């Protein structure tokens, strides 16, 4: 292919528009992207919607030069260009902010910015760089400290720094991949508002991948929806309703519906009581301090909070992975130390975040992983000495079909399953049998609509049959939909509690951000 370089190099601060024409990408016999044409004019805020596997990331990777499309073409400001690598994309002013952060954690913000430049001097004159950076930051709507290591920044600050980095490098077309997935509602609104302001001033063009309809309707100009690699629809946001967009995204799939919420009886027995737990957090510099947390039978208590405020440590304490320094945990009235025996007697089940790493042995088979709760007990009770492979397989087969786990075979390693199917498999294992207490952490992170609906329905069903559920989640919408009570965790403490029905998002958000 001939390298066409006919566009003038972009000027920083002057938005460029892009167009794809008939973009198609095949991996072997699988068509990930099928004839997709989108138009994002300069200075607009464009949303790209679609389920997992709909081809959104394939499309943007083709634009950015990570993939080379099988056919189709890309134009920047009306000129067809050939983008062979992210470097080429950069010369046309195209940049991308990834879902997972690409900042280097141990470097400071300033170091991260400088080292990403195309030309870094062999010896960096920090006095001069700092002055230039300060001047540059003057023009930015975002205010972030550049002198701290990135690992100390909050998620929202990191996300802003990622965007600042792209602007610092002179990009004027940005792809944002689910930029708000780790932010609080207030942080997300602020950040998208600032980005929107830049597009309105013609400094920036944005293509944003998103799952959240309210962001799309509030901030973007136009939307393109992909489904199974094809264009499912597009249009101006002002002409479309949320319902239209959802219909384009999922097609005619029927989503699992939540059971009607049974009222929590006033005299429901407390199942989990956490009192005065103190434990060091991961850095060892701060403590989590849970005064009182009670979860009663048949209710879902949601814990809201920005990631990194101690939710993970709380979950680890409850799972027995982190020894508390003080305080007590009681389950059904007796002290609980999270040993296997206590877990078994009290019917405590646990679905941690990233279940593949935290609740599975990735290289063991699906059948074996599904037997983790039961392999050491005989059917008639008592400790089992020998594994009963036949009943393990029978049980696995029934769980796999009950919970619709998609796997090539029962004896495939569980690591070969997709994220949603690992989540389903763990759910199948944890929700089968008697469950009195269920502790769930971010159960729907990164899953598509139908998997999310399915998993939420299962949890609600467990709640209605009398399970006490503690739901730790960074997704406020999920907490509002699922919980009976919501508590907010900030800086290692539970700082606010509200019944979910009368919850006020802005109040919750303020507490999440530490204003309490």
């Amino acid at each position, binding site marked *: 292919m001939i390298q066409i370089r006919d566009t003038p190099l972009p000027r920083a601060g002057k938005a460029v528009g892009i167009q794809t024409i008939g973009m198609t990408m095949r991996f072997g016999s699988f068509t990930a992207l099928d004839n997709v044409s989108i138009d994002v004019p300069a200075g607009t805020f464009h949303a790209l919607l679609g389920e997992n596997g709909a081809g959104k990331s394939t499309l943007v990777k083709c634009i950015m030069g990570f993939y080379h499309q099988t056919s189709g073409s890309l134009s920047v400001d009306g000129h067809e260009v050939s983008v062979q*690598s*992210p*470097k080429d994309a950069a010369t046309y002013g195209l940049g991308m902010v*990834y879902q*997972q952060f*690409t*900042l*280097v*954690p*141990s*470097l400071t913000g300033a*170091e991260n910015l*400088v*080292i*990403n430049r195309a030309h*870094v*001097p*062999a*010896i*960096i004159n*920090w006095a001069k760089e700092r002055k230039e950076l300060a001047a540059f930051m003057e023009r930015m709507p975002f205010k972030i400290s550049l002198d701290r290591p990135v690992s100390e920044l909050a998620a929202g600050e990191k996300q802003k720094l990622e965007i600042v980095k792209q602007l610092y490098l002179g990009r004027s077309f940005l792809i944002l991949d689910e930029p708000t997935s780790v932010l609080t509602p207030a942080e997300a609104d602020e950040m998208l508002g600032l980005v929107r302001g830049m597009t309105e001033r013609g400094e920036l063009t944005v293509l944003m991948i998103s799952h959240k309809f309210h962001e799309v309707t509030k901030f973007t100009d136009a939307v393109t929806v992909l489904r199974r690699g094809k264009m499912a629809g597009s249009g101006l946001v002002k002409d479309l309703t949320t319902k239209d967009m959802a219909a384009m995204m999922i097609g005619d799939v029927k989503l699992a519906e939540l059971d009607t919420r049974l009222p929590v009886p006033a005299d429901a027995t407390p199942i989990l009581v956490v009192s005065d737990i103190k434990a*060091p957090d*991961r*850095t*060892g510099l701060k403590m989590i301090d849970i005064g009182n947390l009670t979860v009663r039978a048949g209710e879902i208590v949601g814990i809201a909070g920005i990631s990194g405020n101690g939710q993970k440590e709380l979950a680890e304490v409850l799972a027995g992975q*982190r*020894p508390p320094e003080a305080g007590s945990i009681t389950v059904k009235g007796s002290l609980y130390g999270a040993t296997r025996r206590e877990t078994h007697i009290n019917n405590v089940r646990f679905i941690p975040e990233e279940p593949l790493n935290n609740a599975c042995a990735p290289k063991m088979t699906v059948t074996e992983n599904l037997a983790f709760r039961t392999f050491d007990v005989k059917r008639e009770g008592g400790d089992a000495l020998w594994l009963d492979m036949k009943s393990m397989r029978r049980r696995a087969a029934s769980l796999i079909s009950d919970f619709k786990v998609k796997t090539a075979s029962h004896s495939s390693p569980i690591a070969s399953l997709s994220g949603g199917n690992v989540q389903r498999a763990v759910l199948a294992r944890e929700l089968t049998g008697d469950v009195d207490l269920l502790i769930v952490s971010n159960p729907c992170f990164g899953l598509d609509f139908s998997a999310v609906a399915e998993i939420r329905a299962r949890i609600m069903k467990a709640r209605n049959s009398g399970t006490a559920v503690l739901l730790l989640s960074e997704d406020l919408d999920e907490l509002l939909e699922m919980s009976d009570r919501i508590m907010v965790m900030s800086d290692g403490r539970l700082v606010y509690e509200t019944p979910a029905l009368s919850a006020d998002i802005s109040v919750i958000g303020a507490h999440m951000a530490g204003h309490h």
Partner: protein
Amino acid sequence: MDETGIGIWGVPLAIFAGAIRVSTPFIFVSLGESITERSGRINLGLEGTLVFGAMTAYAVAVMSNSPWLGVLAAMATGAVFGLVHGWICKFPKVNDIAIGIAMMQFGLGLAFFLGKPFIQPVAPHLPSIPLGGWSGLPQIQSALNINVLFIIGALLSVTLWWAFKNTRIGLILRVVGDSSDAARAMGLNPDTVRLLATAVGGSLAAVGGAYLSLFYPGSWNEGISSGQGLMAVALVIFARWNPIGCFLAALLFGGAGALGPALQSVGVTQGYYLFYAAPYMLTLVILVATSSPTRSLAGAPGALSITK
């Protein structure tokens, strides 16, 4: 009775002199390893590189009659060992620790094989700088006879510390060591950076070997190294990947190592063998005291295979 002339003061003086003498190879190997580990790779083969460097330096010094030529030759072979390690490790599913152990054995074996003819001849020694001229006491004069490599090592550790912060190469190294993905997103090839970092690390380790054969103890034989190459790898972790920390840790380790001989020299004969274990005990105690079961190691490069 008091043969040393300065009595009990001989102990701290001997420890001081010993610290400088014993620490020099540790300084070079650990500085080299800190460069390699900062790039996200562990080279456990430095023991082999060190011994091969000692042999090369000695052999070249014997043949050319120039100890500095010997050091340069050692650096070249050390770099080759590093390149081989780095080149093998770039293949998928290759474990850098296993390759390191293999390279260590390979280096030892090859050095013993090629070094046989050089056990007899005598090589010129590296020079040292007499800084003790102001004192009339021969003990102080000899203790302050500082070898040149130690001074170079001290300067190098400060330079590296500065370079990790203030140079393009330093930043690139830290980026690659902290996150391969971030490096790739930046258009850097982590394998190339690690290959070069391992080569530089190998060449510095070989300088440590050259010190052993050309200064102290100053001869070439098969028992020349007492595990300095391996201990230095632990020192890097102990020093939290900070070059100045590596230098200080090496000094501490060298000082503890000189405790046994120093006590022996003032006539403590009982159980002085136990003091030979002091450096290892010290390392164990400090490592246990400074680690925590609930906290991850601060400053560890994120892409190291032991922290992943």
